[in-house]
């Protein structure tokens, strides 16, 4: 399949380079790069080099400056000082248009796609070789030939909002390759992939490496860095704190470099008895945005002192299932019984009041009103409750007190409760949301991708909080694509594929070794 590969992405790249009189990238160096935002240093004296056929890992916690550095290389930011050299020749990258012409492509963590446009319309944005007239046909053909070569399954006519995160990432990669990228920057590429998809991605990357491409991989996952990268550069607070060939280091050393302390890789989980049933979901059928059945006949139960995990690639009905349980989406048929009462198709507020809390996916889109103050967001779902308001008025004194408590109880780093919520980092927003959701001591906590994109510290904290809920007698429904997270936390694991459960397994079931197959739909128990 991949023997066509070399021409596949060199043909277009050569053409573009010919226009600009550029050669293929052999080496790239970043030299003494400095960048600060409103007085805060994001990058200090960073030196970096990468050669053809090399995969360089860029490791660091959230806010370590990895993305800033790569955005400089991609032309989104201008460095305050420092130089970038390609093949020894100093260049200036004023914008992503420039970087593309030099053969640099980037796949962002948050995809830069126009949701209402089709795949091909998105790819054609910024694509310099699109024919002037009636480009659709040609472009579609090209996309199909590219996706065939790289074994991506993509329908160019589909609208982006219809695609899962994994599929959207593939569009971004194809887009970069079609624009002739020699150097590909991938920002946390595996955070949206299953282990199987991750392996496929890595295979593709190795192919590209063999053909002399340069790849920079931003990650905070140590295993990945060790598996795929040749060398690794570790950033901490905007400075380089370590560089090594991956064959010379192990996980522990890297972790210590990254956060300056040892982290526990196993969260201790004590066994708990499973006896009191909290929720019964019976033959649930839910339609998705495309009006197709997104959840087909799903049944399960969750007990007190239990974390029930749903593993699977996103876009297989997890979102619709969660929305149905939390009252945000209509249920076509089936029943949800929560602590003995029927909550099928009840309003979101009713369900919340009955004892189902919800940490939503895409925390900034659903979980908070970013322009309002922290204390406003601290009561987003409780503002109608007696302790914060009577029929008419809100008790702002109590609300501010409550917010203050949330900040200290859940380690939210914020100057005060009087700041706009959008000024907090993702980790702190997530801690605030989690604190708000569990402060009412709900019987069931539904958590969708709770640690997506968070740094190691925040992830560890949130996971421990979930275990604490379990210990205190709460039940947790955890939807995650992060298998490490699922294995670490869950008592039972359901694997979801195309709206159905392929199986529900105990955490110690040996059959879990085939979880990848189940996630891909090729094995059903």
């Amino acid at each position: 399949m991949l023997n066509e590969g070399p021409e596949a992405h060199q043909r277009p790249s050569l053409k573009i380079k010919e226009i600009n009189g550029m050669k293929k990238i052999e080496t790239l160096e970043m030299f003494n790069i400095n960048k600060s935002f409103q007085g805060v240093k994001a990058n200090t004296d960073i030196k970096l080099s990468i050669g053809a056929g090399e995969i360089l890992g860029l490791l660091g916690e959230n806010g370590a400056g990895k993305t800033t550095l790569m955005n400089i290389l991609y032309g989104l930011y201008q460095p305050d000082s420092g130089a970038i050299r390609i093949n020894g020749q100093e260049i200036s990258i004023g914008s992503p248009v420039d970087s593309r012409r030099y053969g640099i492509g980037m796949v962002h963590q948050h995809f830069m796609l126009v949701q209402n446009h089709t795949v091909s319309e998105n790819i054609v944005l910024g694509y310099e070789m699109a024919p002037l007239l009636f480009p659709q046909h040609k472009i579609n053909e090209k996309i199909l030939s590219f996706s065939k070569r790289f074994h991506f399954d993509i329908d160019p006519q589909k609208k982006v909002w219809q695609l899962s995160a994994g599929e959207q990432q593939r569009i971004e990669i194809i887009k970069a390759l079609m624009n002739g990228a020699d150097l590909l920057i991938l920002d946390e590429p595996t955070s949206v992939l299953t282990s199987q998809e991750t392996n496929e991605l890595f295979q593709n990357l190795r192919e590209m490496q063999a053909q002399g491409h340069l790849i920079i991989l931003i990650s905070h996952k140590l295993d990945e860095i060790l598996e795929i990268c040749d060398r690794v550069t570790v950033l901490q607070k905007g400075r380089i704190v370590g560089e090594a060939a991956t064959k010379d280091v192990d996980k522990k050393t890297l972790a210590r470099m990254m956060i300056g302390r040892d982290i526990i890789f196993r969260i201790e989980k004590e066994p708990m008895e499973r006896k009191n049933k909290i929720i019964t979901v019976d033959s649930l059928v839910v339609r998705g945005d495309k009006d197709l059945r997104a959840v087909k006949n799903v049944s399960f139960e969750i007990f007190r002192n239990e974390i029930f995990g749903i593993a699977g690639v996103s876009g297989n009905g997890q979102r619709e299932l969660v929305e149905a349980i939390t009252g945000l989406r209509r249920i076509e048929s089936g029943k949800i019984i929560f602590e003995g009462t029927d909550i099928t198709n009840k309003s979101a507020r009713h369900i919340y009041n009955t004892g189902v809390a919800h940490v939503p996916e895409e925390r900034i889109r659903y979980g908070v009103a970013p322009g309002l103050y922290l204390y406003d967001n601290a009561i987003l779902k409780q503002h109608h409750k007696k302790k914060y308001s009577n029929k008419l008025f809100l008790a702002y004194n109590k609300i501010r007190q409550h917010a203050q408590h949330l900040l200290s109880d859940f380690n939210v780093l914020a100057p005060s409760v009087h700041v706009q919520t959008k000024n907090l980092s993702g980790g702190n927003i997530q801690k605030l949301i989690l604190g708000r959701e569990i402060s009412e001591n709900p019987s069931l906590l539904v958590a969708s991708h709770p640690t997506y994109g968070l740094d190691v510290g925040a992830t560890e904290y949130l996971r421990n909080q979930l275990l604490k809920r379990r210990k205190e007698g709460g039940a947790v429904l955890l939807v995650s694509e992060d298998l490490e997270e699922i294995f670490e936390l869950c008592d039972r694991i359901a694997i979801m594929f195309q709206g159905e459960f392929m199986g529900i397994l105990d955490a110690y079931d040996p059959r879990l070794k085939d979880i990848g197959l189940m996630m891909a739909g090729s094995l059903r128990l």
Partner: protein
Amino acid sequence: MLKIKVTDRIDILPRHSFLSLVFSLAAGLLAISLIFLFSGVNPLYAIAKIFSGSFGSMYGLKETVTKAIPLILIAGGLTLAFRAKFWNIGAESQLLMGAIFGTWVGLNWGPHLPAAIIVPLMFLAGFIGGALWGLIPAILKIKFSINEVISTLMMNYICNEFMTLLIVGPWRGKTKFGFPYTDDLPLSAILSLIPGSRIHYATLLVAVVTVIMLGIAVYKTRFGYEVRVIGENPDAAKYSGIDFFKTTLIIMAISGGAAGLAGIGEVAGIHHYLSYPESISSGYGYTAIIVAWLAKLNPFYVILSAFFFAGILVGGDAIQISLGLPAATVQIFNGTLLVFLIMGDFFLKNQLTFQWRPKRN
């Protein structure tokens, strides 16, 4: 090549807001001066004339207060809608619907009822008229995803023609010698004025009470909280269990209703009968958009900004007469100020950095 970078400004202090307000008004006045210059008028003289015409004399002040009444009411209602990011451009016709409903009550029931009963009834009818007219675009938006800017704007035209139809058709007054006016309201339905002015104080009182209640509603109540959450992030509102449909309906009923109050106030206080829609509404529904914006969508500030813009309306009349400028001058004046206010808002909320970069070869 000059590069301009736009980034969010993190901490905005009250004095920054105030400075941005002062600067945008100053810059707006400067731009307006240029327009005056082009039409051959000394800008300093014209601007001085505008403000002396409105605030410089007792007569001007009284007229300014008179024109501030409908602006306070409408803009107060608009602050609520705009906070929820419901762009209600239809206050003009919500005002007219209020006038139509209120006038009907006044004409039909007024002759048999004392003022103490008929006046509150007319205000109630005015509120209901404006509210119903405001509810239609709200329902269209939520149930059918129809953009409210288009629907509210189009409904202005519908209402205009409907009102014209009424006054030339079934409602044409028997005492008006064939002119397209309704009959005068009966005496009990006409609001009394502060002597020597056109200030119908009953409406003024209603207006001030309305914005104070709105202010309390926005900042202190559950309803106001829900309005702000909807405006900031509709997805989060849905997630948090706020009833989007119900809340939006209430918002638009209040916003339209407040404009309706202004409408019946204008008829019962000033005109005493319905005539052509343009002369009843006088563009208050559009001016109020700017008033609400100048007040930073704070209902309490609406009183001040309504007074300011009422002054410009009155002063505009004054320079039309004394300098012979066209009637559109005031609209240009207001429009220019709005543009600068919005620009001021942009500079307040965003930080710009400039960078010179040598051109690449």
